[in-house]
């Protein structure tokens, strides 16, 4: 298993680390028992994400995907942000090892949770369509067969 240069760059120099004190929305996903946990806070301006910061406990891929998702989300509308897929996150990092694809779910779920939190605080309906982490059968360490065989597919 080997990480791409871009993964290592985002792991060694993660962007946007920290907490926004007056955040408009906060998402917290994962569980220390699984070894992965992410907290993401966003500022929202006219239904677009104007600022975003994260904290992550986890492996190299968990930290790198958290970092890249903050870069991707900045400037996006809320709809665009919740539509970011784990595959887009992996592609943006020039790929992830098959066993690490699940790590990007932490980042996309974290962002979705933050957006829904913002909407909820403002009396609006959530738009994320639910989190993978909310599914009781979700196994953050499961390797989906197609990910092993065909990362691009």
């Amino acid at each position, binding site marked *: *298993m080997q*990480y791409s240069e871009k993964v*290592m760059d985002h*792991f*060694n120099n*993660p962007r946007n*680390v920290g907490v926004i004190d007056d955040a408009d929305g906060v998402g*917290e996903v994962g569980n*220390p*028992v*699984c*070894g*992965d*946990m*992410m*907290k993401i806070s966003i500022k929202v301006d006219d239904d677009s994400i104007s600022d975003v910061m994260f*904290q*992550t*406990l*986890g*492996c*190299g*891929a*968990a*930290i790198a995907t958290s970092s890249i998702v903050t870069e991707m989300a900045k400037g996006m509308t809320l709809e665009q942000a919740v539509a970011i897929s784990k595959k887009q996150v992996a592609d943006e990092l020039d790929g992830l090892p098959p*066993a*690490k694809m699940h790590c990007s779910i932490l980042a996309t779920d974290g962002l979705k949770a933050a957006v829904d939190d913002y909407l909820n605080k403002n009396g609006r309906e959530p738009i994320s369509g639910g989190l993978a982490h909310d599914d009781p059968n979700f*196994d953050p*360490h*499961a390797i989906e067969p197609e990910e092993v065989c065909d990362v691009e597919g």
Partner: protein
Amino acid sequence: MSDNRFVYFDYAATTPVDPRVLDAMTPYFTELFGNANSLYGVGRQAFNALEDARSRVARSIGAAEPREIIFTSGGTESDNAAIIGITRAIAPKGGHVIVSAFEHHAILGPAHLLEKDGYDVTYLRPRADGVVHVEDLQSALREDTVLVSVMHANNELGTIQPIAELAAAAHASGALMHTDAAQSVGQIPFNVVELGIDAATFSSHKIYGPKGVGVLYLRRGVRFQPQINGGGQEFKRRSGTQNVGGAIGFATALELMLEDQSEEIARLTGLREKFEKGVISALENTEVSAKADNRLPNIAHMLIKGVEGESMLLQLDAKGVAVSTGSACSSGSLEPSHVLLSIGCPQELAHGSLRASFGRFTTEEDIDYFLEVFPPIVNRLRAMSPVYDKMFGSSAK
């Protein structure tokens, strides 16, 4: 601090071949290439060299006779052969086997196989100190127990097991005793007669010998069903043309370990203590994983709370330091180390385990360098964690 420094703290994973070992082996790959089973000149040379290596290994571990030494392809083969070969020979129709729960997968794998085939297997749990206690074995032994296998020293925690007492308990109940000594032979005194064991596993590449070579010690009289069948080499116990160079490599490597064993025990214990004390005094919420005092001199295993192991490992790698971790993420398995879970370590702490193992070429300066680069890495990762303060209290030192 130098940027291209390389500090290897993973001797328990594997070791470099000692140049003296390589020199002893080399001729047997080229001019002395004969098949040890051939009757003509180069064959006889190879045979004599192989048998010499066998005698030297037998002497080094206190075996009564050279023919109790069976050369194999490594520790995994020896473990498989011991668990399956002994159990099936003695109890072809089923029976009970006891292995400790923190054995290497090379023991657990064949134990699962036996279980599938209808044998009863007890996975005996060590206690929180990292030791399998003899009373626990006594209550697990049954009338139909065929074989007990407990490793001499645990490969992650470094804890040394009371093999002589465990073997005596097994024998009192009519069972045989195997021990996987891959991690301990050469590092600490090991004598098959003093330990009273019937079978043992050794691996060459853990002691500065070549990879792909191991030994199964089988006390004379122990019934055994060969697991690799063919030409009947190794006294009909392990077929296949022998790796003469490898056997010589292992014999030489083992003798070199014994040559300065007591000095190395003292030196490595000093380095390990310096490492453990250094980490604990530089970082809060760190501790030695298993509390037993009787541990291998060369393995430090620690819990670095609130940090995930793979991220520690990668950051240390960036500083030129090679270590290992029991975190799920680094192993590619779904769970953190079964060894840590077996001694009752909570999962969230097991993810943050760190094993540093030292060896022949480790210096005090290596430890100093580690203690310089490691605390900032941990502090940075803890500062990046959303839950460190919540879970472990005050902010990092």
